């Protein structure tokens, strides 16, 4: 803050001194650090967003490429040591057709080791739309066309699940982020207006929030999402879904914003600044915003899981994003019926990142909230 600081931090020695000159952000960070579960969750969240950026690099097979000869291949073991040396390999697969059921099944052919290579070339992609690349974290060396890595197995049409999960993570997490951004915008705008203007504006906004909150959201989302024209592109649908889920999702954030704003407004230190003759600008930006920010960050982190669940649910129902887009919900859609699940239970692994990321955001948000506001 450019509050015209006249104090210059001195070199510090004792822990007590360090505490005395620590800023609120530092104190918050220290409190947060003690919350081990929250820190671990923070790391997990960061890891997920690394996947968002590096999805194509971490995938090793084209997530869209179908291959009828690779239908429902179960997850495959990766062997890390070859004769005691670190040299990861997988076994090649042989296909067998069951003569009674005509189903294909796959067995590792133990005589044929196929070695893995790191940072190799594979299918081509456009890195974040910036430049073309074909680099991937892993690939096979000297592989025959029918060989492949199948860490998590394949789906009915032979697409590799691991690679699809990587790419789905990008969509599901950014749509959550986009949804929360829109909600945050609406929440700050409407919650802020509610708090600043009060009176009739406040009343109307509060009633609208109450009304929106007492509606069953999923049927409404379904109705709105189903109305998106089939001709829309993936990008259009993506934005439309973002808007649909934030349309009902902003209410919680607006309540947090309003409550916090009013609480801060009546804080003595804000009155004190007013009495010292501070301008509205200074009061809002120097005195209110910094305290506000930490709470908003925590609330956002707690709001994200709901956004992610919404998108996943809608896509799972076939009303959200549509193939060829890949999201967690779309992957889970493949695991919708019991017959498929009985045949290919590994399709359920797409649930793991969903659960992990929701838990992580919840713990992170709890930790942030406690750290930002140790007194309640």
């Amino acid at each position, binding site marked *: 803050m450019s509050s015209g600081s006249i104090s210059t931090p001195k070199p510090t020695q004792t822990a007590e001194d360090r505490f005395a000159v620590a800023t609120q952000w530092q104190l918050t960070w220290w409190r947060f650090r003690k919350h081990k579960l929250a820190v671990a969750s923070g790391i997990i969240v960061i890891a997920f967003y690394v996947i968002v950026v590096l999805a194509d690099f971490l995938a090793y097979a084209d997530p869209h490429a179908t291959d009828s000869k690779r239908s429902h291949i179960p997850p495959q073991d990766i062997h890390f040591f070859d004769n005691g040396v670190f040299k990861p390999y997988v076994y090649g697969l042989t296909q067998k057709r069951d003569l009674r059921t005509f189903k294909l099944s796959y067995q590792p052919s133990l005589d044929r080791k196929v070695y893995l290579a790191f940072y190799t070339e594979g299918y081509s992609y456009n890195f974040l739309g910036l430049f073309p690349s074909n680099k991937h974290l892993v690939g096979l060396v000297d592989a025959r066309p029918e060989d492949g890595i199948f860490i998590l197995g394949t789906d009915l049409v032979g697409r590799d699940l691991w690679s699809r999960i990587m790419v789905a993570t990008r969509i599901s997490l950014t749509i959550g982020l986009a949804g929360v951004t829109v909600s945050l915008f609406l929440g700050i705008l409407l919650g802020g207006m509610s708090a600043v203007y009060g009176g009739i504006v406040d009343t109307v906004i509060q009633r609208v929030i109450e009304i929106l909150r007492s509606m069953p959201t999923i049927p*409404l989302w*379904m*109705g709105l999402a*189903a109305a998106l024209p089939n001709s829309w592109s993936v990008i259009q649908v993506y934005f439309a879904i973002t808007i649909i889920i934030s349309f009902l999702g902003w209410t919680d954030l607006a309540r947090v914003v309003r409550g916090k704003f009013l609480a801060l407004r009546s804080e003595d230190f804000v009155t004190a600044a007013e009495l010292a003759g501070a301008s509205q600008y200074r009061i809002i930006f120097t005195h209110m915003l910094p305290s506000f920010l930490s709470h908003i960050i925590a609330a956002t982190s707690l709001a994200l899981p709901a956004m992610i669940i919404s998108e996943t649910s809608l896509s*799972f129902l076939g009303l959200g994003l549509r193939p060829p887009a890949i999201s967690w919900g779309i992957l889970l859609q493949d695991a919708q019926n019991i017959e498929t699940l009985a045949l290919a239970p590994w399709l359920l692994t797409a649930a793991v990142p969903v659960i992990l990321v929701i838990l992580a955001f919840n713990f992170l948000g709890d930790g942030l909230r406690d750290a930002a506001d140790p007194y309640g």
Partner: protein
Amino acid sequence: MLAYIARRAVLAILTMAAISVFAFIIIQLPPGDFVDAYIANLSASGSSVSMEEAKSLRALYGLDQPIYVQYMKWMSRVLVGDFGESMEWHRPVAEVIGDRLWLTIVLSLSALLLTWGIALPIGIYSAVRQYSALDYLFTSISFIGLAVPNFLLALVIMYFSFVLFGANVGGLFSSEFDLAPWSVAKVWDLVKHLPLPAVILALAGTAQLIRIMRANLLDELRKPYVVTARAKGMPEARVIWKYPVRAALNPFASTIAYLFPYLVSGSIIISLVLSLPTVGPLLLKALIAQDMFLAGTIVLLLGVMTVIGTFISDLVLMWVDPRIRFQMD
């Protein structure tokens, strides 16, 4: 008291009005009007409609009039129970929906009761015996409830019961009762099938309520008056039940208004996974087939049921503890 009820009632009516607008928008949203869809539907099945017929159909449904007139017309028909005709089923919408709406409500209500029935005792236990083994167990379970969207939970439970017992746990009735008319035996069959979907549905809400209840009660138990009561040698059970539990319940009351809508929402999606004969699968089918009168009506009726349900649970709550209305005012 009366003022409070009136306020709630006005709000409920406003909410229903808002929902009716949404439902109308949903009916209106798809490109073309319903007559276009009707014509396409008929021509797909071989017969055709002349221009005149189309025109008279449009006039009949008022489709040639401004949108708000159409809304008013639709509303006036809805209010007398005429929801239009389902295009896919060629039958009145009300008939297509049939029992499904009631089953949705039954399922959501059971989940509501379960949520309260499970969450409160566990929340109290967890707060009173903070950091005990059971507290940890409940806390972990509630985190699972929090993190696993209920359709996923349904999916996982389906899978495991299939693998372990070879049984399909879906449905609300055994096959012999599916189409049978209502009878005592059929109701009993329903009662036997209800617990599993109700528990799945209730878990997420329960998880949330346990967390809130535990936190509220812990805050309350730390307050000086509780410490004083203990110091005076008041029996522990009385110390806890006399005020703290009630005080902890209070901030909690406002969450109830949002629990029921949440459960109704959830019932839609788990019904799809568990193939329950509620309005969920019907709604999805209607939306995909663009059978908009059916879809819009389902959204409308669900919304209205939710609002009424919430209103009633509000009243019940107020009857149980009149102080709550001050909290919410």
